[in-house]
């Protein structure tokens, strides 16, 4: 049985092989990177954020208290602070005319919430099958009715309807797995 996140963090200060850290990295680095990329719009900066998050994780693993927050929540809190730091560094530089740096803490907060949500929805859609993604794309983003989708794709309209229902149900369950509340 795989170790829980909290167990891995507790073992980190004694981790001689790097195995615990690697396991935590593989569980969380992709989503933290997605969040950071969505917030910073810069792959290089996002990779720096992820590195810093894991550095903070092993330096402060002894302070982690599973009763206060899950490991995931903790990692996102660290990532959030690192992203804010990156924004501040960018704001301290001389601004270009086309620079759209965020001016206030409230704007930055809202921007981070938006970035997180945007990444989560994008990641959830990516976990759907191509057929399910396609019906959502055509119906929601394309504004087509079930009959129009059937005409366009050559799939029977009954199949398009049930596929759309399954797609949304699956999407909802993916959000549940991600602990998101629509």
């Amino acid at each position, binding site marked *: *049985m*795989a170790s*829980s*996140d909290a167990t891995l963090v507790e073992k980190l*200060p004694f*981790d001689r092989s*790097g195995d615990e*850290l*690697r396991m935590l*990295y*593989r*569980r969380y*680095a992709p989503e933290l*990177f997605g969040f950071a*990329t969505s917030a910073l719009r810069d*792959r290089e900066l*996002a*990779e720096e954020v*992820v*590195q810093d998050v*894991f*550095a903070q994780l*092993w330096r402060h693993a*002894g302070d982690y208290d599973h009763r206060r927050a*899950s490991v*995931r929540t903790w990692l996102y809190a660290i990532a959030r602070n690192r992203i804010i730091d990156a924004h501040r560094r960018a704001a301290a530089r001389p601004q270009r005319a086309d620079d759209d740096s965020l001016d206030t803490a409230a704007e930055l907060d809202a921007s981070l919430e*938006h970035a997180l*949500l*945007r990444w989560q*929805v*994008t990641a959830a*859609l*990516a976990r759907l099958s191509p057929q399910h993604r396609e019906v*959502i*794309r055509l*119906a*929601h*983003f394309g504004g*087509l*009715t*079930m*009959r129009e*989708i059937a005409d366009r794709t050559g799939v029977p309209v009954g199949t*398009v*309807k049930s596929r*759309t*229902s*399954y*797609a*949304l*149900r*699956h999407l*909802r*369950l993916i*959000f*549940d*797995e991600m*602990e998101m*509340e*629509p």
Partner: protein
Amino acid sequence: MSGCRSGAELIGPYVLNALEPEEMDEVRRHLAGCPRCAAEARSLGGLPALLDRVDVDDVVAVPSPELEEQVLDRFVRERPRMRPQRRRWQRLAVPALAVAALVVAIMVVALPGGPDRAYARAELWSMPAGGGAAGTAEVEEVSAGTHVKLRAEHLPVGSGRAYELWCVRTDGRWVNGGSFHARGDGSAAAELTAAVSPGEYHVVVITRRSSGGERGSEVMRGKLSY
């Protein structure tokens, strides 16, 4: 627990406002008299607003493969500087706490009814390979992890009756809870144990039995309500 096959397949298109006007009216009338479909419509109703948050062409950014090694390298370089040091009070506190924990454990086991258990329940919905199956899963915490009491109907049995139960953790990892067989009429009743604590997951999935290292197709899914 028969479900509502006729209404269920229109709820997704209804939520996306992608039916013809007369069909929209038909679904509205149906929802007024069908609590199960109305609950389904409420459950899916927030999705369009979430979908509005993204562009259709957004893609999931993936970190470079080198990043993992960079993180590990940095860890190896910093590790010698961060050896944990146990303070004197901690050396004394650990044995004392162990004795206290033992006393508490003995008291809890000795009390009538034993320790409290966590309960949860999931309504299981059919997935594409489920052919209209429906069921429930009742969860009880046990020392080995989770005891799941499963009931199902309308399972497709034409191409085999063996199924598997999975608990999906919040980090997306799947923990196998064992396999069971459906009866000839597609019903099933099974009691299984998964090596994962109830609080660590809240989605239960039934699949066809795994074959050749590949997980079987999904038949039913549901979210646990604790």
